[in-house]
């Protein structure tokens, strides 16, 4: 059985904290105390900022931004087959929240990617993401 997306994200941010601590701190600063709720193919979990990044299973009571998408779309965006903006326009990524919070969530995503491309562990995690069902 493929690893849950929430588990992959939890391992990913733990590696970032160890491998690229300065980038991790930038990501923390970018996200601030906001909670982002994610729904990937029906698996609902949330990413919480603060002193450390925390990935929690289940729906968030209060979330600044709520993002729904699929594992397939995440891989398409990471493989550059689809731009993130195109995925949003096509409805394969749905984002809800106030404009400020959505902007903060987007900036946090970029900070996460900046950190991930500097961390040696992340290609393996990406391979595990690919190993999931299409």
């Amino acid at each position, binding site marked *: 059985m493929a690893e849950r997306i929430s588990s992959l994200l939890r391992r990913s941010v733990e590696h970032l904290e160890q491998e690229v601590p300065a980038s991790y701190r*930038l990501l923390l600063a970018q996200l601030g105390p906001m909670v982002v709720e994610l729904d990937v193919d029906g698996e609902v979990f949330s990413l919480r900022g603060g002193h450390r990044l925390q990935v929690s299973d289940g729906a968030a009571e209060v979330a600044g931004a709520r993002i729904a998408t699929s594992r397939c779309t995440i891989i398409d965006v*990471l493989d550059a087959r689809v731009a993130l903006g195109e995925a949003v326009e096509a409805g394969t990524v749905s984002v809800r929240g106030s404009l400020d919070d959505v902007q903060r969530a987007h900036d946090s995503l970029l900070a996460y990617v900046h950190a991930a*491309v500097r961390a040696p562990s992340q290609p393996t995690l990406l391979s595990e993401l690919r190993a999931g069902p299409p």
Partner: protein
Amino acid sequence: MSAVLAGSDFLRAPVLASARPHGFKEWHHFVVHGRGLRLLINFSLTNEVSGTGHARLAPRVIVIAHDDRWTGAIERFDDHALDVSAELDGLTIGDNRMTVAPDGYHVAIDLSDKGIRGELDFASASRPFVVNNQPVGDGRMSWLFVPRLRAQGWLRIGDREHRIDNDLAYHDHNWGRFWWGDDFGWTWGTLLPKASDEPWSMVYLQMTDRSRLRCLSQALYVWHHDEPAVIFRHAAVQTRSHGVLGRAADCTLPPPMRLLLDGDVPGVPKRIEIAATRAGDTVHAEFRSQSYARLAQPSEVRLDRSTVLCEASGTARASGTISGESVDFVGTGVFEFLHG
């Protein structure tokens, strides 16, 4: 020219990176100007410092090809996948291998995970040239280039197999200590004629600041048959860039970097004119971009920036007079635009 390459184009990393690893980089770069095909192969070593402060050389192999559009891959390997031969004339990265021979190079590519395999021999057709300690931001870079080689072999990418049959090619080898994202940019070009009996080969280099607004140095290197004919430097060279190519990059590698680049990185100029004059010698060269690929890596200076190499293929044209001989050819160009 026998043994010129073996004597000068050896790997520097085992000595220089061991002595002082911080910021060290080295790569061997090959460009094939094939009939209907442009091919770039790059073996690179970059010193990286882990979160715990441990320094290591990160090896990468880059292969991109263009027939109707650019495609290819960047593969990063663990440091234990790297081997340098005792004579410093061979570099093995995973199942990929580059060997310096007395008068050429042998390159074997096996990136099976990416569907890329190939084997090429490059025979030098021109004398190499070395430029030492070029300033790049707070660092220095040295480079050796061979303006013209003959390439023979094959390369398979996905379901396409390309035959390279005595096609013209270019090689450079770069090493030094500098940091991606520091205050520098460059435009680097190889211009070769379409007709293989045409004797002229040209290499162009312009170093700028990071914003690409201030030119720090530039040169046009012109070879006639296998020898340097004239080197135009600094004020002897005038470069004009026209417009922006009206199409997006064919590909961004590694693909996840597209998330960070879209809307944030300039593309490539539509056309570049290079006019060079010195002591009665004149050359007017022109490169017209057709399409490009983006090779991206994290900035080493800022954690929220990326460094992008735009590799553009296009047509080239050159005219002028050197030592009383007429220069007049059409051909192909591959230009690299570095955005810091």
